[in-house]
């Protein structure tokens, strides 16, 4: 280039430079424009427009500002920008269902959204200000918004004890306990009970190899000739407590051979009193009498029987013990007698109480069970493949451990099996990289994984050892909810500090009371200071509530208190001494300070009693829920014997504030005046059923 040409730029270069500059500026404008027209700004404008058209504009826009809103809780690791678009969250006037989302207000919940943030409960990406990024699984964020049907799972992260506002969570936890998942998996908040499956050491004494073989095939109750199944365990519907394992006939033969082959203590056949035998042996109505006795002793409170009602087979009875429809074809008669006399001799951890049997009762009931609760075709189709005995037993031994039977069933002499399945105590906190999807086709997310795995383990892992469960409608969702609540130890110290630990009260009864308490297993149905079952009333304040003579009488002869209950307290045939000890303890120890039994009450006059009757029948119409005799409503207990049953001080206190004494009672809390209370108490105290305070031990000889 010549010196004079320096500095000259050719036209072509100028053109290229101009065009590329213009293009560059256009491209440069893309980023600011995207910023200007971002999604959240759109929603802010929309909210402003919506609020403008409403009567309470000022209130709705009080906190409005055109930038990004966020809820910041550093101790909970919460930085939630959801409120940028969801601006009506705290506005009570926007709760109507016609308000378009995202402006609708949050339903009223026990926690304030602005204090807790959104992602603590709903998960999802709180950082995001874009719709897709906030709600769904994206490249940079794995955890989508929790579907509403599982939202109660996050309640359970802090509320380790069940709360009434989260019924699905409570249901899920109950199902997990019922199905004994704890047998194979470690779970958060669930303790391994003392006994999961029965001790199989002496199974040889109880039943036959054919029965075991059939049971391993399908651990429900046994099908009848038509193939109808009457079900076992798990709240009277389809799912048995023992799962259905994937076994073939050879494996079943091996296992049954192994179990039958164990050395066990022989049972001495019981010698009934010869007079009883002589009297009852030939009686034609022996079995009917046995059935009557069976019914009178309310075995059905714990055990259910399949009956045909209205054309369909239903299980009537409780699910604390196994159902007994065909138990006569299952157990050996000697075993049954020894069991009834002392269940803990066979199953030390069993929950069956040790009744006080008279020989006569035992004889009758035994015959009833063995003669009527049977099915002669039960084991007809059982074909055990023939194989060398020794091989079977050895492979049965191996299979017992391999299939995980040892996780639930104990056999004396065998090492206890632990950790058969993976540790699930932090399952709800697992990230996608920790889950083994295998070749399954599903979105790579925790929730589809849990749903698929629990519903059908083989679909996720073809070699799964987890059995196949069949859940009732809605229970699969409940179990997933409960699983989502198990997040292990919280890494955020803020959340860790908020966890309401599971309060499992312990209650140890000792002394003579303790002996009777353990013998009759009161805690299976009743609660004592927070510990025990919920089938029957809480006895923590029984001493304040009931009079001691009444308690003594009730223990010997449990009566009907509530007209419509299916489950009643069985008649244990407690001795007089035991009844005295139990009643004494309850009356003296199980009291509440709210009821002062020693306070002196002035005598009630008959005027007060008639005024009380007037209040009862006319003003407050208590008969809508309570019966006196046979007239009245079914909701509350029968008051015909209220004078003998309830302490006066208790009645007074109860009428003042029932929920203070029994928190979940539905007796309405009314605002009685002091006179009304006295009048009603006076009336109730006059209700005495004559002839009830007597000891009535049913016919039967020595014990």
């Amino acid at each position, binding site marked *: 280039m010549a010196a004079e040409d320096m500095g000259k730029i050719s036209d072509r270069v100028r053109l290229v430079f101009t065009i590329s500059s213009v293009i560059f500026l256009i*491209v440069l404008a893309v980023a600011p424009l*995207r910023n200007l027209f971002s999604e959240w700004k759109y929603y802010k404008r929309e909210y402003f427009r919506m609020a403008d058209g409403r009567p309470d504009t000022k209130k709705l826009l009080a906190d409005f500002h055109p930038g990004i809103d966020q809820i910041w809780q550093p101790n909970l690791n919460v930085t939630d920008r959801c409120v940028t678009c969801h601006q009506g969250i705290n506005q009570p006037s926007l709760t109507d269902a016609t308000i378009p989302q995202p402006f609708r207000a949050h*339903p009223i919940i026990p926690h304030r959204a602005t204090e807790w943030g959104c992602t603590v409960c709903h998960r999802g990406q709180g950082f995001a200000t874009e719709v897709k990024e906030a709600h769904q699984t994206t490249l940079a964020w794995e955890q989508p918004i929790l579907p509403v049907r599982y*939202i109660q799972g996050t309640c359970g992260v802090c509320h380790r004890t069940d709360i009434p506002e989260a019924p699905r969570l409570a249901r899920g936890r109950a199902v997990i306990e019922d199905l004994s998942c704890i047998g194979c998996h470690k779970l958060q908040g669930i303790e391994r009970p003392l006994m999961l499956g029965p001790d199989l050491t002496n199974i040889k004494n109880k039943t036959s190899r054919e029965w075991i073989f059939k049971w391993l095939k399908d651990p429900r109750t046994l099908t009848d000739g038509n193939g109808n199944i009457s079900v076992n365990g798990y709240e009277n519907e389809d799912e048995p407590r023992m799962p259905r394992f994937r076994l073939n006939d050879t494996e079943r033969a091996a296992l049954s051979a192994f179990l039958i082959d164990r050395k066990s203590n022989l049972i001495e056949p019981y010698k009934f009193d010869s007079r009883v035998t002589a009297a009852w042996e030939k009686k034609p109505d022996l079995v009917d009498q046995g059935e009557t006795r069976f019914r009178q002793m309310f075995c059905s409170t714990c055990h259910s029987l399949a009956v045909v009602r209205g054309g369909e087979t239903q299980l009537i009875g409780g699910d604390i013990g196994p159902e007994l429809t065909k138990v006569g074809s299952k157990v050996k008669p000697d075993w049954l007698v020894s069991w009834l006399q002392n269940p803990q001799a066979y199953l030390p951890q069993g929950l069956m109480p040790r009744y006080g049997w008279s020989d006569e009762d035992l004889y009758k009931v035994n015959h009833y069970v063995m003669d009527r609760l049977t099915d002669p075709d039960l084991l007809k189709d059982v074909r055990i493949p023939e194989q060398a005995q020794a091989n079977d037993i050895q492979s049965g031994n191996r299979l017992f451990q391999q299939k995980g039977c040892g996780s639930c069933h104990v056999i004396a002499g065998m090492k206890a099996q632990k950790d058969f399945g993976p540790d699930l105590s932090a399952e709800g906190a697992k990230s996608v990289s920790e889950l083994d999807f295998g070749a399954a086709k599903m979105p790579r997310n925790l929730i589809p994984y849990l749903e698929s795995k629990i519903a059908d383990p083989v679909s996720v892992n073809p070699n799964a050892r987890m059995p196949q469960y069949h859940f009732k409608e809605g229970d699969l969702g409940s179990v997933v909810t409960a699983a989502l609540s198990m997040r292990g130890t919280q890494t955020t110290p803020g959340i860790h500090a908020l966890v309401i630990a599971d309060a499992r009260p312990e209650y140890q009864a000792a002394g003579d009371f303790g002996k009777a308490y353990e013998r009759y297993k009161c805690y299976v149905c009743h609660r004592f200071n927070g510990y025990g079952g919920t089938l029957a009333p809480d006895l923590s304040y029984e001493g304040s509530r009931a009079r001691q003579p009444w308690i003594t009488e009730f223990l010997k002869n449990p009566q009907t208190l509530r007209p419509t209950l299916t489950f009643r307290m069985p008649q244990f045939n407690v001795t007089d001494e035991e009844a005295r000890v139990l009643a004494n303890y309850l009356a003296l120890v199980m009291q509440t300070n709210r009821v002062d039994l020693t306070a002196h009450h002035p005598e009630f006059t008959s005027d007060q009693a008639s005024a009380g009757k007037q209040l009862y029948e006319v003003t*407050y119409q208590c008969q809508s829920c309570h019966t006196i005799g046979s007239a009245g409503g079914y*909701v509350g207990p029968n008051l015909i014997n209220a004078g003998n049953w309830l302490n006066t001080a208790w009645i007074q206190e109860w009428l003042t504030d*029932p929920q203070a004494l029994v928190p979940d009672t539905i007796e*309405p809390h009314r605002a009685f005046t002091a006179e009304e209370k006295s009048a009603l108490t006076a009336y109730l105290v006059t209700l005495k059923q004559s002839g009830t305070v007597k000891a009535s031990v049913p016919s039967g000889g020595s014990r």
Partner: protein
Amino acid sequence: MKWPSVIMISALVAVAALQGCRQKSSATDFKPPDKAYGSEPDWNNSQQIISLNYQQTQGQRIFYSNCVWCHASATPAGPSNMSNLKPQPPLANDGATLNSLSNDYLQNIITLGGSAMSKSAMMPPWGRTLKQDEIRAVIAFVRAIAQPPYQQPARTSSQYSEK
């Protein structure tokens, strides 16, 4: 070889510019999560399932602990108390009777009891046993299961509710 590079550059530019046009499409593709917090089978037709939101589910819970004994024909314990009572209380899903009563009226009768509203004294007052929010939740549940279905009454002013 100018034109190929010019075409390539303009193509790149066009693609870059069009990225900015994609914002609102993601909003319309978005499907909100499953709405049903709880559910209740229709009392008249058990095949039909009614979805319940949070408030209605709480109402369902309270109904089944406190109200079902008298206001339903079958209860979890078996028989219902309804036939013992004269006058018979309405079934909770009785839309013919209940739809015409306003929410305020129901709130009052549940809180204060039947005798305070010139109805049978057999209906107890729940105002001291249940919180006002809980009673509102029960009413919401009752509206949800009503047959014939409950229609929210029309308002005279703007379509948005007023506080």
